[in-house]
């Protein structure tokens, strides 16, 4: 098993008047596993604590209780992350080449060929190396962020709403790219999102998350129609009515 998260608890303190604090629990005993080369979709509404879980897996936040075991040991972590907000996750004062080389060691930073190779991997070319983030479109900048995540040759990439703020057509391009990269490098993804559509396109396994708990796990996306939990059902039906009006259904089956 590549990543094993066991019984994570996390709460945030909320001040209550002058004295005393109450702890608001955000995660209430979450356990999940991600295998080599597997993509797991974690779906839940905003405020359900899914991003907090992501931060704990990355090691940015410490859990109150529970363990995160990566590749069998708790020390070295070959993981990377791509966030939702591409504008704030790339320093506006750095050129693309500096953005890409940020996670690299000093010697590797000088290897322009490697940086060019990274850009090729995400469907861009060397001409982008000298540009600044504001000179790129949203989709291009998100590709740069994915290239940066690939720079350290990770085994696992956490995708925190990585396509949510992009247009539908660009979303599909990025999802295709992620799928191709996954096959090529045998990457594992934990895909955190509120969008069930992109999950069905990319993921193997789906976890429904609500109010700090896992409410249901679907072992394969093709069995998604069999979900039982009321929350997952409601979500599924909402997306169905939203995305496939009767008129479009005919087009779909053409």
């Amino acid at each position, binding site marked *: 098993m590549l990543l094993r998260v066991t019984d994570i608890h996390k709460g945030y303190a909320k001040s209550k008047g002058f004295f005393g604090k109450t702890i608001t629990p955000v995660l209430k005993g979450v356990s999940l596993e991600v295998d080599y080369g597997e993509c797991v979709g974690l779906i839940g*509404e*905003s405020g359900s604590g899914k991003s907090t879980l992501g931060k704990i897996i990355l090691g940015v936040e410490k859990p109150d209780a529970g363990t995160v075991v990566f590749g069998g040991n708790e020390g070295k972590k070959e993981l990377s992350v791509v966030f939702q907000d591409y504008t704030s996750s790339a320093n506006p004062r750095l050129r693309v080449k500096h953005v890409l080389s940020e996670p690299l060691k000093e010697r590797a930073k000088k290897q322009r060929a490697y940086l060019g190779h990274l850009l090729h991997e995400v469907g861009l070319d060397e001409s982008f190396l000298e540009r600044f983030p504001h000179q790129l*479109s*949203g989709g291009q900048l998100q590709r740069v962020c994915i290239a940066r995540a690939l720079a350290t040759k990770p085994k696992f990439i956490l995708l925190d709403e990585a396509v949510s703020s992009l*247009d*539908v*057509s*660009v*979303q*599909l391009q990025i*999802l295709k790219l992620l799928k191709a990269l996954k096959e090529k490098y045998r990457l594992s993804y934990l895909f955190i999102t*509120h*969008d*069930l*559509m*992109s999950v*069905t*396109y990319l993921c193997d396994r789906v976890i429904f998350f609500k109010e700090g708990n896992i409410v249901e796990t679907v072992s394969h*996306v*093709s*069995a*998604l*129609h069999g979900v039982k939990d009321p929350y997952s059902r*409601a*979500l*599924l039906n*909402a*997306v*169905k*009515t*939203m*995305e*496939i*009006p009767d*008129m*479009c259904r005919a*087009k*779909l*089956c053409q």
Partner: protein
Amino acid sequence: MLHVHNLTISARTRHGLQPLVKDVSFSLETNHCLGILGESGSGKSLTCKALMGLLGDEFDVQGEVLFQGQNLLTLPEHKRRKIRGKEICMVIQNAMTAFNPLFTLKNQLLETLRTHLDKPDSMLLKRMLEAFEKMNLYGGETLLLKYPHQLSGGMLQRVMIALCIALNPVMIIADEPTTAIDVVNQVEIIQELKKVRDLFHTTMIFISHDLGVLCQLCDTLMVMHEGQKVEQGSVQEVIFAPKAPQTQMLIQTRLELLRAFHACTEVAPCS
């Protein structure tokens, strides 16, 4: 009802005028809903802001916008202000930032209503509460005393739609009202807007990059790409027989995602 003729919007830059929207024309009949589909940066929001007269001095707007026979673009500001809000209402994308966080909803809603309707506060409040009820927002009295941060994004969006109804406008412009909220709430917002159309026969312009949403509400679709209108027709025409390559691309990508979704969520897809 609304005729837009050769609308051209340019940004004033140091190097002269840079055109952003070029020669867009369309017209809208009473009680119709027009959907504007386009990727980000295609100029769809800009077009609607120009209709509302919300663009600042840094933009140059040319062309003609005839609303009930009046050209909005040449109308003096004070007259225009009366139309904006009273006759044409706008529902914007981010309800969270549309309200002032420092005041209660009552305060802000009354302020808007007072500007447009010449009636005592008690009457206005009654009107607001009625609108809340029509939007399935119960407990209106307590709702009014809340601050924006105490409500969810979906809730605030519904309050905003209720405010529109209270003003009883002839036309509503909805600029991506469902983009920033989660799916379960999205469905509800769409239902509310449908209801508005059925109950009040309001004319509507609905902007989105999401074909699914537009299909649910609109009669006609207009597709924009890089500041130009590339296609217009009834929803059926645009979906089943798209002519412009940009439209075909938009529909193809949408279908590809939908197929994956459809295959996973139906017991027997396409049977």
